[in-house]
């Protein structure tokens, strides 16, 4: 045991060197505000469940980017979770394809109250390039109630962060 401790003490912290990240002041400002509200209204942790209801996957790429080292949304208390049962917010992308309609409604019902829905991307906001057709319901609000809309095709990570902040602004009212 003693030898193990000695080894650990001698070795110190060995993390791979990372090039210094240039932080974007806008993102930092938005993030700080998000963090303040998440701390105040959600005991420090806001859980988001992402639902692709028919997107082209462009929106997903930018949502993924929120988790890269530049944005690193977890440091603002925002987490993406695996189940709607753990979620405060549903982040929905895509024009709702009819083949996903029931799944979206069920996911919404499985999310505990109080809950907020963010429509992410032009498709989710208004149907976008796909609109309404024999197999597309168009905007998310045609299927489940929507609290916040984030336009863009796809919205950039910074815009997404601003959208999350907007949703937090609506929290007090609903609660």
């Amino acid at each position, binding site marked *: 045991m003693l030898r193990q401790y000695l080894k650990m003490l001698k070795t110190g912290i060995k993390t791979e060197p990372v090039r210094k990240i240039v932080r974007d002041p806008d993102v930092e400002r938005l993030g700080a505000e998000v963090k303040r509200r998440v701390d105040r209204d959600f005991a420090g942790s806001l859980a988001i469940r992402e639902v692709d209801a028919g997107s082209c996957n462009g*929106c997903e790429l930018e949502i993924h980017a929120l988790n890269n080292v530049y944005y690193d949304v977890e440091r603002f208390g925002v987490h993406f979770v695996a189940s709607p049962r753990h979620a405060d917010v549903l982040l929905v992308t895509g024009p709702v*394809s009819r083949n996903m309609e029931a799944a979206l409604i069920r996911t919404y019902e499985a999310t505990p109250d109080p809950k907020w829905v963010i429509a992410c991307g032009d498709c989710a906001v208004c149907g976008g390039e796909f609109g309404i057709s024999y197999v*597309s319901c168009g905007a998310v609000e045609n299927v489940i109630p929507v609290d916040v809309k984030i336009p863009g095709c796809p919205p950039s990570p910074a815009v997404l962060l601003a959208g999350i902040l907007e949703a937090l602004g609506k929290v007090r009212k609903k609660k």
Partner: protein
Amino acid sequence: MTVLSEYLSALNAAGIETTETGSLTPASVWRIPAIAWERAAELAKIRGWRWSAGWGEDLGERLQINALLEREGRYLLLRAEVPAENPVLPSQALHYPAADRSERHTRDLLGIDFEGGDGRRWTRHHAWNETEHPLRKDFPVGGEPPETTPPDHDYPFVAAQGAGVYEIPVGPVHAGIIEPGHFRFQAVGETILNLEERLGYVHKGIEKIAEGRDAEGLARLAGRVSGDTTVGHAWAACLAMERACGVEAPERATFLRAILAERERIANHLGDLGAICNDVAFAFAHYQFGRLREDWLRTQRALFGHRLLMDRIVPGGVNVDLDKAATDRLDAELNRLGRELDTLIDICDRNTTLGDRLYTTGRLTVKTAAAFGCLGYVGRCAGQGFDARRDAPYPPYDQLTVKGVVEEAGDVASRFWVRYKEICVSLRLLRVLLGRLPESDIRTELPPPPAGAEGLGIVEGWRGEIVTYVRFGDDGRIDRFFPRDPSWLNWPALERIVLENIVPDFPVCNKSVNGSYSGVDL
């Protein structure tokens, strides 16, 4: 004897009447009787032709079926017609398993029956009835959907049998930030015995809503067939439209298109390299590759105006240009990325825990890859070297040398390394493209296409060969649009790749293939 004449004499010997009906650059077009549809496939298969794409068209009284084959860089489009009243012909899936889903898609959307094939529906869930066919011209775009579309049910999955065998249904809503689809596993203990994919959840009627669009509108739609392949699909669609109209994009435009396409390839490969590492809990690499990808996207935002490069390729050319300062900046970035990758890849290579999880996991055999005609890095990890940039070059690749990347191990590690090697090839290509950027316009006007004008666009997207078919109707409006994403041929391979692997390795196997859902659901 060319591969074409060899095949033609085989068809003749089999008594199959073949009419050559001109060409659809880069393919020759042959019309054969519907009754010989399967036999023609059998003869092609024996001669080593690869099945590439299949689609149908509503021509009024008759429906037309198309199958695109490729051998040694030569393309051949087989065509047959069936009466719209009673559209039946024998299935090609017996000889080309890759044709299976394509035929089922065509049946659901056009009502063509492929005898002897898998009779189960594919794209149709419950948004329209069995007797309705959305791609028929008399079917209204709005359809007559039910109040709320019921979830998919009664799909006849292959059933599990035997002691200790159990089933795991997954999806359509998955646990991560990922597209929806359904996977049905049969397992014994931890080991996967069988996997069946059920896709079609993001079917949003792309082929139908394309009808009646103008060229610009189609390019925008094509750029959204699969969000991560926006350059690839837009390029293929524009190439098809340009060929239909009989024009060529200016030289500078083709160079800029290639720059965009290679950048898209690198961006996606960087993301995937990180994601594969992440799926086996090597977070360090995930964050490092993610950082490089983000830097790359920010440059794209700054120089091309869009992080993912959507809507930059337009009919007749491109709508972004680069000045001297911009090309210098891009050039410097290439050097930086090259250096960063050297260090990072070295760390990955020496990490034994990473190796433990990636080597021998999720093996795709050369035989299976050939049977399905797998494309891109999925094919290249298992001996399928086809690369449209080199083997069926289109401008500007006809002036460049594209180095081939092929491995045979077929495991997750191989798909990891092929991606890395493809990045290296792309970096080299980008250097040449930037260095040789010719002076010319970046866009030319599309002349109005005659009604019925058709075109084929084949480009090498980051997942592999993309095939797009376009036919114009009256007033320069689109009458038929069919984009074939490489995922059509790679998804079925995943069902084989995971066999004998443990269930917890499914995510990394899936990520290493990274098929597009939106690209095949359409």
